[in-house]
């Protein structure tokens, strides 16, 4: 025995640090500087001479203060794979209209010629290249009122607008996704968001159906998402475009459509849920049938439930009351129902032993249900004369008002036994410690993980999580209930455990060979 104890201490001392080292967050090496990014190009709006404006995001180091002695080199070509020639250079630290991005206007582009552009910088001697933007053709723009002045910063339009039927819904909704305008940067005081326009025919007028603030919605895919549910009818074709607003300028995206809204019969994002739930339910039903057929099903001892009889007996011997607290939540909480199941058993015992029972509750519906449960229990034992409606009474819905009320009752009436069975929150320790201070025997049961430690510390017995749900099967020993318990264990735990082990192996292998697989595996099991 001593050897076993010594070994367990040694293994703790050895294993815990090892585990800690394994999960310890190591300092990652410094990241490399990223090159200039998201280069895009458009015809300069309102320029009657014709020019092309390009926009890219600044790289770290290109700030008004602390700038390094480096520059951006702007290159141009007439074909994507052709020779790029340098047309300009912009020094880091050179002032610009935006803190996040830079723009350059190429006035030397020949009208009606298509061009490609790229930007290169060498902050630490190594050349870093942007993506290639283009083709864009320089075209003389018509002179629009107020639009001919050379503006400090040109608005680039949102691009790649996609419109599609919102998946997995009951119709009447269309989802739009687009790549945000390069001018749409965080904390931009001048960017005024987007307006969404829609029409129902391919050549009819567009009307505005909504607006959206700037910023990406999906940071992984770098898109803004907007759901149009404004008067959308199923089966009607719609066309959309999105217009960005910036400093008095407006820029339209491409037109997306036709797209029709439809209702879906099945939520594909929950298919995995359905499969796993199906396995669980099939397992439960199978073992219920097995139990009904007479097969003996083993259930381990649960100390808290074994102690119920003893606890009520103690109260009887001492001539004191039994308090039963069925949680602080309403009848829509499954823990409350589980708590009332145990109340039926406790009420049966108090009826048999003629012990006083009090059930103060925090919800009116629980009061009504608990009364039925207790009355029925007393009736079944033939002690309906001993029952009174006042055994179950309402205190208050308020969490701490309820706790204060229970504490007062416990301190004044000093019950010998207190049951806490149901859903509890912060009041759990207040109740349990007060009960402990008067020397009552306390049996708790809850499926609130945060409250379990408090009950374990302050109560004599605690039903942890699913033991609370197993109580009805355990106390009644009814075959169907025992069967469902077995099914839940086999179908649930065994299957999920196997699945977890398989996924852990896949993900561990993927971490070394193909990190992308990890996100694919994760996405497989996402429930939407």
């Amino acid at each position: 025995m001593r050897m076993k104890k010594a070994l367990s201490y040694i293994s703790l001392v050895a294993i815990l640090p090892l585990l800690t080292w394994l999960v310890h967050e190591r300092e990652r090496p410094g990241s490399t500087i990223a090159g200039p990014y998201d280069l895009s190009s458009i015809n300069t709006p309102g320029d009657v001479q014709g020019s092309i404006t390009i926009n890219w995001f600044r790289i770290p180091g290109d700030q008004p203060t602390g700038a390094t002695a480096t520059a951006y080199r702007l290159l141009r070509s007439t074909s994507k794979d052709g020779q790029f020639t340098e047309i300009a250079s912009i020094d880091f630290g050179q002032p610009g209209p935006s803190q996040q991005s830079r723009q350059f206007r190429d006035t030397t582009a020949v009208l009606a010629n298509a061009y490609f552009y790229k930007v290169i910088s060498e902050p630490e001697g190594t050349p870093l290249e942007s993506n290639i933007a283009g083709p864009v053709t320089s075209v003389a723009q018509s002179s629009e009122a107020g639009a001919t002045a050379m503006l400090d910063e040109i608005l680039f339009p949102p691009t790649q607008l996609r419109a599609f039927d919102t998946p997995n819904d009951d119709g009447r909704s269309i989802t739009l996704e687009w790549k945000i305008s390069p001018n749409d940067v965080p904390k931009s005081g001048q960017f005024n968001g987007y307006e969404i326009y829609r029409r129902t025919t391919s050549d009819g007028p567009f009307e505005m159906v909504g607006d959206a603030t700037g910023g990406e919605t999906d940071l992984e895919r770098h898109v803004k998402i907007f759901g149009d549910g404004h008067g959308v009818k199923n089966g009607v074709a719609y066309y959309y475009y999105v217009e960005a607003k910036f400093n008095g300028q407006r820029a339209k995206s491409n037109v997306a459509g036709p797209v029709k809204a439809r209702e879906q019969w099945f939520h594909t994002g929950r298919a995995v849920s359905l499969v796993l739930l199906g396995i669980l339910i099939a397992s439960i039903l199978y073992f219920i049938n097995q139990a009904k057929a007479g097969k003996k099903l083993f259930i381990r001892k649960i100390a808290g439930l074994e102690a119920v009889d003893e606890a009520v007996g103690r109260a009887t011997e001492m001539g004191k009351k039994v308090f039963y607290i069925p949680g602080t939540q309403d009848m829509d909480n499954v823990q409350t129902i589980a708590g009332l199941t145990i109340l039926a058993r406790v009420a049966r015992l108090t009826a048999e032993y003629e012990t006083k029972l009090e059930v103060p509750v925090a919800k009116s519906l629980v009061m009504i249900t608990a009364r039925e449960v207790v009355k029925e229990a007393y009736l079944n034992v033939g002690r309906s004369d001993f029952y009174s409606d006042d055994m179950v009474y309402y205190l208050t819905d308020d969490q701490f008002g309820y706790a204060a009320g229970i504490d007062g009752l416990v301190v004044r009436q000093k019950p010998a036994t207190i049951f806490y069975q149901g859903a509890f929150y912060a009041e759990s320790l207040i109740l349990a410690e007060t009960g402990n201070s008067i020397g009552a025997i306390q049996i708790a049961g809850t499926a609130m993980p945060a409250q379990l430690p408090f009950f374990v510390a302050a109560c004599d017995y605690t039903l942890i999580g699913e033991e609370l749900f197993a109580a009805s099967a355990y106390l009644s020993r009814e075959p169907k209930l025992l069967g469902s318990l077995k099914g839940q264990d086999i179908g649930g735990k065994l299957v999920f455990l196997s699945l977890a082990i398989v996924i852990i192996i896949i993900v561990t292998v993927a971490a070394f060979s193909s990190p992308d697989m990890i996100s694919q595996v994760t996405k497989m099991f996402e429930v939407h």
Partner: protein
Amino acid sequence: MQRLFQILLAIDRRIIFLVIFLALSVPIFLHLKIDIDVTREVQIFYDAIEALPTGSRVLVSCDYDPGSEPELQPMAETGFRQMIKDHIKFAIMGLWPQGPMQANKALAKINEVREGFIVENGDTLAFGRDLIVVGPDTIRYGRDFINLGFQAGNELVIQRMGSSVAAAFPNDARYGRPIETYPIMNGLNKLSDFDFIYNLSAGYPGTVEWVQFAVDRFHVPCGAGNTAVQAPQVYPYLDTGQLTGLMGGMKGGAEYEKLTGFKAKATMAMVSQTAAHIFVVLFIVIGNLAYFMTRGKGQRKGLS
């Protein structure tokens, strides 16, 4: 010595209460200060609010009552400060009845002009009620913020808001007018029209429900402030990215205050909390010492 340990084992709990009371109260009276390191999860939340563009609309769900005020109220006050400074609009609501009142209390606390009124376009706007002044910024009820009030129904309210905010909150809590009449609600028809959800939660319904019903179903990013007891339950959602930032307990509030540069109640209370933690640890050490010293003696007695 043995006698001392036996006394310690059976010490009256009122002595423990007295020591804790002194540990909590003395630092407050002495105005002691303590430096705090900011944790990753609070930084994520702060950065998420900072990254919101000007004019963004945030849904602030106050799901707590006065019992959790010491932990969550500083987070509410600091959150409102940050959003007002960044010109972010917000709509207040509550899944707990006292939540919206707590939000009013937080706004009243940070407001710097409590009396007086102005008349604008025929409307009389009272400071402290319709106008909240924080530093150089003034926000106006109906245009920059709104209080939708409390709605019974727990997570079903969130579900309802998913298709229509007006269906869940037809009128505002302050004046009882249809919410569509307020400029702030232009374009805010459903939950996914909000740019961010800021949830302050002390239990059920709370952060878990917001993650399950708002984030997972309607893809609205959500950051939360929780009581210290509830925070461990919510950590799994932070790791999976379903929560954008988490402030746990008074320390989370103090870290948030440090990030915003306005140190207030949570920072002050950290000294008391630290002292209390130290004493609890000391009690545990003393209790174990007494346990081991008396246990050995008991065994020897048994043998003899």
